[in-house]
């Protein structure tokens, strides 16, 4: 405890400062509530909700990045809202509407820039992380002066952002070493309708999933001059495509040893790919269209959730056996999962049961249920120090 007597007398009048609990932010996180649009600030050591911040616009699709001091959360909302939230003071520091329709964001390697990817107007905007002042606008122009929706935006080493153009079938690298004059490198004809992308945890490989094409588009950032290659070009060619009731997300690049796990699209399978040779090792059959395929931080387990109508179930793949070992039913409409920083627990959101469920990943036992209003994404501050998230 702070001893007030150690402080000069004039400080005593700021009694709220003296009595305020000192705390770090490393075990904090954010749970998105869709309706009414809000976030809960939560604590992953004590499994508690600390507070709620409201009036955040349309959060039907939302994602979050953290400042490198892990004090601030940046919320990217569907309606183009960009909100900076102070996790310690539990309030909005600044909120702007930066576009008409938005899908995601990223924070730069040095923590000074925020990039947002937009559907309307199609492109990427760059903001100061400190002030949210607009620094650069990168319209996603293609073809006959059209604007493409932008997806799969990630930060990459050497102060770059990488993103994919859904309508144009392109991947762009933006070099932000001079924030007001981004240098753009374009890769065209990478495949039809890239719908999301991921960056490997070491920051070397960018992979985009293709909705209307076979396989995946791979860019090796160590050898950009080699261009974008198609991997798994023959995957699923003979199989009839099943309907997709929710687009998969590729953010959870799951790597165990040399293996990578990704959701198939239009197939009820998780694909296991060998990194470096990019050959398919195994197709693991699962109960639905996978949405998130996420590795526990130690890589021993991979957790999978599903699109409608199989979205009441979560399944776990044992990486040693490359097969399913557990099915759980956390509640109706499971939208997202997030591991605690070292993976002893996982938090799972069940939208239509209005709750977040916390499991012990070593024995799959339920530890806690927290009430939440139509919860969707869950984001922990440990993301602050990871590339590509």
């Amino acid at each position, binding site marked *: 405890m702070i001893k007030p007597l150690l402080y000069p007398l004039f400080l005593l009048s700021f009694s709220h400062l003296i009595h305020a609990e000192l705390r770090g932010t490393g075990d904090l996180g954010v749970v998105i509530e869709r309706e009414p649009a809000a976030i809960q600030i939560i604590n992953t050591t004590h499994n508690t909700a600390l507070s709620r911040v409201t009036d955040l616009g349309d959060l*039907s699709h939302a994602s979050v990045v953290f400042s490198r001091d892990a004090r601030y959360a940046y919320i990217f909302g569907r309606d183009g809202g960009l909100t900076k939230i102070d996790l310690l003071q539990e309030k909005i520091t600044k909120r702007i509407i930066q576009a008409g329709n938005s899908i995601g964001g990223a924070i730069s390697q040095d923590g000074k820039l925020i990039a947002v990817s937009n*559907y309307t107007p199609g492109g990427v905007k760059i903001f100061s992380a400190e002030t949210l002042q607009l620094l650069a606008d990168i319209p996603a122009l293609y073809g006959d002066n059209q604007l493409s929706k932008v997806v799969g935006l990630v930060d990459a080493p050497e102060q770059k952002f990488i993103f994919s153009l859904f309508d144009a079938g392109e991947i762009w690298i933006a070099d932000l070493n001079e924030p007001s004059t981004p240098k753009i490198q374009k890769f065209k004809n990478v495949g039809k309708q890239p719908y999301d992308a991921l960056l490997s945890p070491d920051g070397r490989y960018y992979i985009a999933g293709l909705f209307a094409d076979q396989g995946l588009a791979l860019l090796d950032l160590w050898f950009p001059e080699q261009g974008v290659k198609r991997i798994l070009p023959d995957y699923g060619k003979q199989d009839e495509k099943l309907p997709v009731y929710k687009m998969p997300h590729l953010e959870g690049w799951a790597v165990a040893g040399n293996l990578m796990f990704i959701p198939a699209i239009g197939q009820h399978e998780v694909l296991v790919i060998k990194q470096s040779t990019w050959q398919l090792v195994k197709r693991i059959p699962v109960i639905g269209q996978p949405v998130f395929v996420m590795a526990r931080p130690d890589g021993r387990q991979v957790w999978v959730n599903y699109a409608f109508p199989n979205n009441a179930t979560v399944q776990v793949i044992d990486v040693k056996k490359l097969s399913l070992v557990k099915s759980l039913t956390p509640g109706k409409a499971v939208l997202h999962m997030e591991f605690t920083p070292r993976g002893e627990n996982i938090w799972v959101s069940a939208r239509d049961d209005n709750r977040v469920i916390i499991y012990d990943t070593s024995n799959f036992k339920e530890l806690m249920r927290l009430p939440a209003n139509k919860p969707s994404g869950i984001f922990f501050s440990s993301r602050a120090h990871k590339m590509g998230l």
Partner: protein
Amino acid sequence: MRASEPSLERQEVLKNMLKHDCGSCHGLTLQGGLGPPLLAQDLANKPDDYLIDTIQNGRKGTAMPPWKPFISTAETRWLIQTLLKRAP
């Protein structure tokens, strides 16, 4: 028309689906996302049969899946009426 309306309980399920499941591509406020906006003004000039076919059977070459396994034609009709009646 009234005779074919879904039960009140079913209407709640359909409204929740519209908001959250359709909303995951078309936006929770239906102003569009990866899929086009579904506001009254966007749908007004499209024939009912076209809208029903799109929802029931999906649209080839796009990400729109068929909802036939989950929503009857009568319920689809009711959903479209609900969309057209929404205030701008």
